[in-house]
């Protein structure tokens, strides 16, 4: 009995000792983690600081300005939501948003579709030198500054530019027109410039994605008698889900937030036909000196981009699970 109680006591003492050491270890661990965390915080501080100062703060200020009527110089007056209401009621402002969505067709769908097709074709002869040349040539537009691309294309699309010269050579002279100055063709013409610029990026991303697809999948498909078309739709395309989402995200943002190409090629003309929100924000802020309205449109544009791009991301996560 006594012996037993001694055993128990000893046992308890052991337990207590054990608890004591675990506690100490835990505390030490926590301290180490804290120390490490402090170090991590210190290391990320410069980046966080830069992010707060150059990203968060400007966004916050834009939101704030959007509630004021302000010319950028003199004292401002509180405007409440009137700048946002004006966007809904001004056909010029809402028209620019419609134009931006039309551009998605050219800036996103065309480059992604063409990119898929081209990448698939290049994959067919991936090991040859031709593939390297093709890849380089097709990627080149991506490294040309947008302004330079805009100037180059506005020459090519002008009345006596290359595009019209080709039409005339082919005996299609009656189709020749000042593409960027014609009400019917100005927006598609701007779209073509964007498609040309963004195509290379999409192709390269998709091509990179294709290299990580397991070759045995293709072998299996071929054994089952699948042709190249079936192979593409059953193996290539599903495996590229994430890459396609990345391409769409990048290009849709480029379409909705477009500025440089339009500014260089048409400045929004003819007759506001190619006016986009980016350009409108610039005109509002720097020509009409309505910093409040410009900020409101900027906030709306940011929300629109998020509203379109965020649902896309869940598409890519579903693909993973």
């Amino acid at each position, binding site marked *: 009995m006594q012996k037993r109680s001694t055993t128990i006591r000893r046992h308890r003492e052991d337990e207590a000792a054990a608890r004591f050491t675990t506690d100490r270890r835990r505390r030490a661990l926590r301290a180490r983690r804290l120390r490490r965390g402090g170090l991590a915080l210190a290391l990320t501080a410069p980046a966080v600081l830069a992010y707060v100062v150059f990203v968060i703060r400007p966004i916050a200020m834009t939101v*704030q300005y959007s509630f004021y009527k302000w010319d*950028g110089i*003199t*004292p*401002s007056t509180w405007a409440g939501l009137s700048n946002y209401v004006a966007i809904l009621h001004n056909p010029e402002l809402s028209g620019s948003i419609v134009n931006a969505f039309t551009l998605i067709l050219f800036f996103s769908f065309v480059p992604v579709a063409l990119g898929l097709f081209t990448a698939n074709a290049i994959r067919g002869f991936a090991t040859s030198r031709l593939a390297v040349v093709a890849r380089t040539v097709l990627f080149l537009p991506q490294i040309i500054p947008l302004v330079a691309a805009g100037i180059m294309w506005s020459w090519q699309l002008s009345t006596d530019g290359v595009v019209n010269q080709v039409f005339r050579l082919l005996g299609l002279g009656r189709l020749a027109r*000042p593409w960027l100055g014609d*009400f019917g063709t100005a927006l598609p013409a701007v779209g073509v410039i964007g498609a040309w610029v963004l195509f290379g990026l999409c192709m390269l991303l998709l091509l990179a994605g294709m290299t990580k697809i397991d070759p045995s999948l293709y072998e299996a498909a071929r054994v089952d008698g699948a042709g190249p078309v079936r192979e593409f739709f059953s193996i290539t395309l599903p495996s590229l889900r994430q890459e396609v989402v990345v391409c769409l995200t990048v290009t849709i943002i480029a379409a909705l937030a477009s500025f440089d190409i339009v500014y260089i090629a048409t400045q929004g003309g003819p007759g*506001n036909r190619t006016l986009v929100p980016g350009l409108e924000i610039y005109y509002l802020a720097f*020509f009409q*000196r309505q910093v409040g309205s410009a900020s409101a449109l900027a906030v709306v544009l940011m929300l629109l981009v998020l509203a379109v791009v965020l649902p896309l991301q869940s598409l890519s996560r579903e693909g993973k699970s």
Partner: protein
Amino acid sequence: MILGTALALAACSAPGGTAGTSTAASTGSATFAGGSPTCGTSPVTLSTYIETGFPLPKNLTDEFTKQYPNVTFKIREDQFAVITQNAPRVLVDDPPDLMRLPQVSGLVKDGLLLNLDPYAKAFGWDKWPASQLEQMRVDADGRRGDGPLYAMGLNFSMTGVFYNKDLAATFGMTEAPKTLADLDAALKKAKDAGITPIVQFNGGATGGLAFPLQGLMASYGDASAINSWIYQKSGATIDTPTNLQAAQHLQQWISSGYFASDVNSIDYATMMSRFIDGKSAFIFDGDWESGNLDQKMPGKVGFFLMPPAQAGGKFGAMSAPLTYGISAKAKHADCAAFFLNWVATNQQARTIDVQVGGSHPMGPADAFMPAVDKNTVTAQTLAAGAQIGADNGAMDFIANATGAIYAKSWTPNLQKLVAGQIDAKGLLTAVQADYKTQIGS
């Protein structure tokens, strides 16, 4: 996080300060004490902000330094569009002594420009023909045309019609049209001869059809009524019966194919190069190109003012000073004003104005004028300037009525007129509606 909150809090005060506690500079005024302001004798550096691409200002400052060696110029150059965007910020942050200015009313409202009335009195500018300075006067409500003087011109330019004499001879036009009907006939003859009658810039953000339109407005109506609209006089409208006639006339030129077919994609540089290459008979442009045309096509270019609708009628033309102002915070305002007076009154400066700038110098009506070769287009534009003065037909540009009326209303609506999407009436209604919104805001 703490830092972020601090920054966010710092950003929370109303932008530009609240209406009660104005931080803007109070409207400045000239500071010289008695007598005529001068540049003195000790070294002075005038900080100067000019428009790039035009040799006139630099020629003038060089000559000034030659005559007054104690004065030098620190010159910053930008394109006019950049100056337009940055004018308020530059005038506040880095106030120049002399600056090329866009439309002044907004800048005056914000108290950024020096009131030049004391200088005008000291130098006797108030005795010059009043129309020269009218556009640079701004009243207490921010309306132009009246009130204190806030800027000064290096010269004043004027617009009209340039024509290629060689091409005109091929379709039988040997002298300048005297009436609008004569001009219509000449345009038709050019068209029938297979020549593009008019090449005019109207592409992108440039509504160059405003040039012929305003010329036609002056042919049908009264120049002073158009000025009232530009100066935002209360009740003024652009949608008047005579302006409608003018817009309909322009629309008829468009439908008759008198403009190059791609007019909606032509920018200013394209217009000039096509005209200089002899690809069209007429352009509507200003005398700032006179010197250039005399050099590129010597003896081949003629100039006339847009003819009146009826024979013997009065002439009207857009005419505007090459506007320079002094910042309300300028360090050497007296010297800058002395320079502006020198440009208008010094013989050498006036000669440079005509020979380099191609436009008429500012100053008294009977001031010295350099001799100009009669065969040059410069001589013709200077003569036309005298005609406009006699007919009191000088107008500011309809594109200057508000800061945004050109880019946001005239340009898109004129492009729509070309494309047949709106008619003459629609053009005037749309512009008047935008005008009212922009003034109201």
